């Protein structure tokens, strides 16, 4: 039971990154490779602010930092002529140095005695029936807020414009939608959620190291694609958002189960990579399968003849 609870907590925390990718990858059509660095950036900024005694301000600071990083990534690819994938990689690399600088030239920060939003919640919920699950309460609250925000936002005019930018770039090019604007706004918002996700994890595990975000993009992408297979792509947005959260939880659950079956912990990243490959190539190969069979069949016949 405890294991499932931990999986739920960790899954919901990473679901914020999954929701960020839902916005940037599924809606805007940008594969944001700065996700790993941005996750750490949020964790580092949040930790530093929390260490100075402001756990709530830490949340805002981390989101602001994430938005800034998203802005740089978007600016590079819309205004500076840097390829979209490359701008993510460049920002990701740059953030590594920035993250160490933010953490005061150290690659590890400890928050064992620091007040976090989790300790605050523990004190607040103390005697009530929610008391024992104070961590889960905080995490559910954040995940729900982000889902509600995105469900609202993606139906607004600017939200529709962001979705159109990813859905039909040809149409957007000849319409009054400015793809520069939609890309910048979309990436600012999505990265602020990625950073929030990192900030929560840092406060949850009471420490940050500079590699906390490494592999996060692939893990979140795997979760997103798992959610897609459960919910389907042609469903209403709000349902797909819930699917993204569900995908993050399922991923964690499977991972926890695999750990119980003595899979070493360091396999996590390989597993996430394999899931992403299967989820993306699966439908492609399925489509190609009849053609492959026909080709093979043809070869077979000529050989026989």
């Amino acid at each position, binding site marked *: 039971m405890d294991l499932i609870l931990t999986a739920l907590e960790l899954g919901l925390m990473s679901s914020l990154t999954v929701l960020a990718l839902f916005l940037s990858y599924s809606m805007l059509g940008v594969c944001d490779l700065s996700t790993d660095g941005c996750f750490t950036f949020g964790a580092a900024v949040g930790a530093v602010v929390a260490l100075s005694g402001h756990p709530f301000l830490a949340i805002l600071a981390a989101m602001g930092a994430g938005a800034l990083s998203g802005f740089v990534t978007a600016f590079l690819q819309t205004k500076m002529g840097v390829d979209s994938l490359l701008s993510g990689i460049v920002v990701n690399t740059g953030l590594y140095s920035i993250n160490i600088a933010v953490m005061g030239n150290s690659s590890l920060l400890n928050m064992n005695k620091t007040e976090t939003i989790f300790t605050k919640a523990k004190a607040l919920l103390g005697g009530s029936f929610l008391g024992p699950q104070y961590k889960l309460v905080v995490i559910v609250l954040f995940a729900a807020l982000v889902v509600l925000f995105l469900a*609202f936002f993606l139906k607004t*005019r*600017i939200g529709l414009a962001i979705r159109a930018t990813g859905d*039909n770039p040809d*149409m957007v090019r000849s*319409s009054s939608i400015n793809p520069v604007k939609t890309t910048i706004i979309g990436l600012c918002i999505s990265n602020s959620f990625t950073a929030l996700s990192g900030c929560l994890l840092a406060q949850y595990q009471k420490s940050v190291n500079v590699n906390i975000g490494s592999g996060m993009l692939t893990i979140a992408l795997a979760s997103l694609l798992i959610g897609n297979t459960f919910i389907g792509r042609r469903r209403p947005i709000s349902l797909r958002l819930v699917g993204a959260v569900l995908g993050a939880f399922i991923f964690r659950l499977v991972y926890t189960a695999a750990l119980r079956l003595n899979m070493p912990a360091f396999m996590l990243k390989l597993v996430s990579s394999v899931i992403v490959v299967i989820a993306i190539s699966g439908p492609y190969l399925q489509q190609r399968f009849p053609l492959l069979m026909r080709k093979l069949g043809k070869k077979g016949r000529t050989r026989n003849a």
Partner: protein
Amino acid sequence: MLEIQGISKTFNPGTQDAKKALDDLSLHVNKGDFITIIGANGAGKSTLFNAICGNFIVDSGKIVMDGKDITFMPDHLRAKSIGRLFQDPMRGSAPNMSIEENLALAAGHGGWLARISKHDRELFRERLSQLGMGLEDRMRQPVGLLSGGQRQALTLMMATINPPKILLLDEHTAALDPGTAEKVLDLTKRIVEKDNITCMMVTHNMQSAIDLGNRLLMMNHGKAILDVEGPAKSALTVQVLVDLFRTKAGSELQTDRMLLTDNDN
């Protein structure tokens, strides 16, 4: 309304592939004009539309709309007053978004954070019912489920839901089957007449070039080689048009050859 003053555009300048797509083209479009444009492949018809829409900035010349010089205005700002339809019906709408979301995007009512209102839905429903395709009952379905003809009709609706200053139709019925093409063309005529929208239409169909609109433009090698309007246009027949094209384009071709010889020397 739209004043095109001697615009030129050369693609791949200074290379072997250099192509003068627009050659000192001037055109004065009056308010309420419905101009049909014909010309061979590569005559510069689509390039002219691209120039008006700002897909590229012309090498020389000026484009003025309603007294405002828009020569250097970015394309997405021009798009506010220009409606455009392409040959490919898939190009004008977002397939994974619903019909009403596509229309809301085109209508652009309210601020950035405005959502589709009840009033919007009523407006969309009323407009869609005019298409006679039953789309008004499928407003929450993704556009990707529609047929090519339905999607082109929807694109037309999107382009004209806020009547644009000028509507550019680039062979917008060429990819549809004949029956659907006629229906969409009919719809185009009705909408353009109802809102008195200034319109330019590229077509390969000589007969519709003659039947539709009040003015006919023939293009060749980036120039307008014939511009007839009013009674003179109504008197045209396909045969006359074909003959005219041959003589006009023929003489143009000779000029071109002479130019080439000059260059060789």
